[in-house]
């Protein structure tokens, strides 16, 4: 048995979050009735011309800056020529030889290790429309429909070097990229609606072989789970084929989630000759320093920088910092909570956000943005734990109350329900004296060396105060009285 190395490169189409299309004024809104968002330019009437949407260019620049790429001072739109009914002009406008974003890299985390994935390029292009072959109703029986609402939607195609060495790395990259494009606000990341879709170029080679094996491209992976399954299947299929003495032919394949298999769509032989050439309707795109600098000044703190800051300034673990910076929404939620609770409670905020809150959201299948408990409320709650007003156990009750909308702030609920911890020695003293007198047997057991008895006594004390006693104070006072 030879040892095999897997080589993967990913091409991602991220739909840019602009209001209008990349070369026309039509809306990019998803979900309208067919062909509502298709104007003269989108349906390619004779004589119409494209005009570049500067917002799409800004998205590309934002991305380039976020991945440390260089922004081309001059890039060129080309025509990619092929016939298909959902491609109204008979060509797609895309950047070919000179893309707007060159190079850059993305840091990914796989298990405990980090890896830098080099990016080749990112270029702007327009999406095609959609061909609909079923569900059109009786009137269209046996015919195909064309919906051009999506035609001309701006896309950023982001291409990696063949740097990834496993399905897990590929998925980690796709997740990190997905988080980043949402973080910098250039893509809504909605994979069901096709706003973020990946193609994986997969090949295998014997370990130590210098040149790459022949690759097959798995098209249109629109979930991380499918990406993992598709690459796993593809890798195993390629290795099995080679070990059987077969060879891999370059091909485009599709993943079938039902069977869990990949199957060839077209081979290299029937690959198109797209006859790329610079689009004479669009002058080269020039981007000056001032434009780039302006966009740089508007960029939010990026996940990697924020993660480092959370570790350095808040004392979070690398793991916690990574989870919290997993999405812009989560990171913003956390920062708001810390702002309310105070920096000394930063670690506790992380525990609450990643613990109780995350568990509850997960249970109810909600996103952080839909949390019934606001970041402000969590911060107020953590502050009261931190200053000893309530115990962690009481805090969970307050959290439940906030979740169900039984109060607007933790302080209000604590005051209303009388949940403040009893910490003052005077009132605890009397209560403990009574407790010891009533539990002489346990006291004897403790004195005979049974530590368990001590815990039982603490439990009795907490029960007597309905959980409000400060457990640390109770423990300290008990030891003093017994020892």
């Amino acid at each position, binding site marked *: 048995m030879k040892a095999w190395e897997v080589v993967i490169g990913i091409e991602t189409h991220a739909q840019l979050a602009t209001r209008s299309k990349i070369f026309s004024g039509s809306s990019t809104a998803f979900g309208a009735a067919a062909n509502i968002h298709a104007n003269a330019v989108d349906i*390619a009437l004779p004589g119409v011309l494209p005009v*570049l949407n500067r917002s799409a260019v800004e998205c590309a620049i934002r991305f380039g800056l976020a991945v440390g790429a260089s922004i081309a001072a001059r890039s060129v739109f080309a025509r990619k020529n092929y*016939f298909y*009914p959902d491609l109204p*002009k*008979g060509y797609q406008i895309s950047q070919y030889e000179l893309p707007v974003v060159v190079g850059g890299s993305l840091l990914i985390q796989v298990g405990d290790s980090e890896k830098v994935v080099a990016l080749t390029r990112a270029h702007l292009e327009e999406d095609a429309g959609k061909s609909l072959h079923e569900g059109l109703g009786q009137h269209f029986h046996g015919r195909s429909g064309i919906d051009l609402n999506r035609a001309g939607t701006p896309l950023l195609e982001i291409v990696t070097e063949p740097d990834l060495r496993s399905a897990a790395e590929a998925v980690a990259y796709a997740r990190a990229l997905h988080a980043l494009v949402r973080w910098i606000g250039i893509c809504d990341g909605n994979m069901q609606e096709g706003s973020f879709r990946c193609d994986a170029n997969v090949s295998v080679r014997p370990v130590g072989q210098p040149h790459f094996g022949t690759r097959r491209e798995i098209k249109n992976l629109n979930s991380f789970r499918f990406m993992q399954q598709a690459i796993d299947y593809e890798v195993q299929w390629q290795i099995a084929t080679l070990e059987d003495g077969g060879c891999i032919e370059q091909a485009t394949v599709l993943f079938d989630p039902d069977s869990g298999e990949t199957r060839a769509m077209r081979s290299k032989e029937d690959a198109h000759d797209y*006859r*790329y050439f610079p689009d*004479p*309707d669009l002058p080269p795109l020039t981007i000056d320093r001032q434009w780039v600098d302006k966009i740089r000044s508007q960029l939010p703190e990026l996940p990697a920088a924020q993660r480092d800051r959370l570790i350095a300034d808040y004392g979070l673990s690398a793991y916690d910092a990574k989870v919290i910076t997993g999405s812009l929404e989560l990171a913003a939620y956390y920062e708001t909570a810390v702002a309310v609770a105070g920096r000394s409670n930063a670690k506790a905020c992380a525990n609450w956000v990643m613990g109780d809150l995350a568990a509850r959201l997960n249970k109810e299948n909600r996103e952080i943005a839909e949390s019934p408990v606001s970041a402000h409320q969590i911060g107020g709650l953590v502050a009261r734990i931190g200053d000893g007003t309530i115990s962690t156990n009481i805090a969970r009750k307050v959290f439940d109350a906030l979740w169900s909308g039984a109060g607007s702030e933790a302080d209000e609920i604590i005051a209303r329900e009388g949940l403040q911890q009893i910490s003052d020695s005077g009132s605890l003293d009397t209560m403990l004296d009574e407790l010891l007198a009533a539990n002489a047997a346990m006291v004897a057991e403790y004195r005979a060396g049974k530590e368990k008895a001590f815990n039982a006594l603490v439990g009795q004390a907490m029960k007597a105060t309905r959980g409000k006693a400060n457990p640390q104070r109770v423990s300290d006072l008990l030891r003093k009285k017994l020892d």
Partner: protein
Amino acid sequence: MIEHSLQALAQALASREISSVELTQLYLDRIARYNSQLNAYITIDADGSLAQARAADARLARGEGGPLTGIPIAHKDIFCAQGWLTTCGSKMLSNFVSPYDAAVITRFKTAAAVMLGKTNMDEFAMGSSNETSFYGPVCNPWDASCVPGGSSGGSAAAVAARLAPAATGTDTGGSIRQPAALCNLSGMKPTYGVISRYGMIAFASSLDQAGPLARSAADCAILLNAMAGFDERDSTSLDRPAEDYGRELAATTGGKPLAGLKIGLPAEFFGEGCSPVVMQLVETALGEYRKLGAETIAVSLPNMQLSVAAYYVIAPAEASSNLARFDGVRYGYRAPAYHDLTDMYCKSRAQGFGAEVKRRILIGTYVLSHGYYDAYYLQAQRIRRLIANDFARAFSQCDVIIGPTSPSTAFKLGEKAADPVQMYLSDIYTIAVNLAGLPAISIPCGFAAGLPAGLQLIGDYFSEARLLNVAHRYQQENAWHLQGPGGFT
């Protein structure tokens, strides 16, 4: 009235000597009478035209007339016009009624000109004789057995036969200037980017430019004033301050009107390839220019001879892509019977396009193909830069370049139809101008055997006003442009 200049027509309309409705009806009647002899128009909509004329008359009555208010203008059928059949001379668009107006049409509407009709043209502007039109060839009013030139042959024939006071055309390799020359008209191709291409059906996007076809340089200036201007819908449109292209025409200079003007004569325009009779007329015209005070000097455009070859790579390459949208899916011609998608494409395009269009799509597809792109398309683009550099060098020595527009007078219908290369060579003097993006005008310079010949004046970028003036000064002293063909009284 039909011999009036545009300025005279505007005065007649403003003074209510004639109404726009009367003027429009006059031309509609002439079209009804003579168009069958010439086939200059594809579409006439008398009711629509007269409605526009009435609106123009209302404006004129309020004293709000401009230089073109109420004047009927014919438009090449390459410009989309809302509610009008817009065919581009092709079966492919024989059923296409445009839902929108081209920028040029909008500009004439803003000027309250009357849209007189849509003129015949070579299919998708591919041709130099107007013989490739799905709607049949156009005859030259000077000799009905001859071609009017192309591709704006319908516009040229219409204006020459006085079936329109003036018309629009488009010029990708000479399609305004060559028919102007062959029909005794003044026709200008402005600097690339001066007139918006929005709504002008694309043949070769980097070369296409609209322009006027009229009976004098002065008329061209009036039309150009209406047509030119920045349009944000065309990314190749140039954002420059508006100018009055006729501003130099009224200028009076003491002494000789063109004193100090340096006319460059490229050796490449005066060698073999031009018929001696045309060359004789060009030489005579140059003599007239010297009398007007101009000085002629020798210049060189050494890469000129490569222009036809470069053009027939670049223009078909762009066309092969521009015409891909005519696929039978959304509008235009679709084959009546087919068995699958590919068959629908193949049959619709095979039946919808004529032979010359198919030839150019094939050439364009070939030169853009993988493995051939560098040798053809990139090489042609390099030649294009060399030609532009040649002109830049020449314009450092002279103000205007002059030579023949077309190597011959109008040729016979069918004479070159079977030989594409001979046909392509009829644009030998005009193509380089499009490759460089320069402005140029063709003006009448006399007759050989009863057929008109054209003189081409080429200027540096944005020198339209000067070119028009240089043409105008000649037309002040020489009356060739005032002659009309017989038989259309």
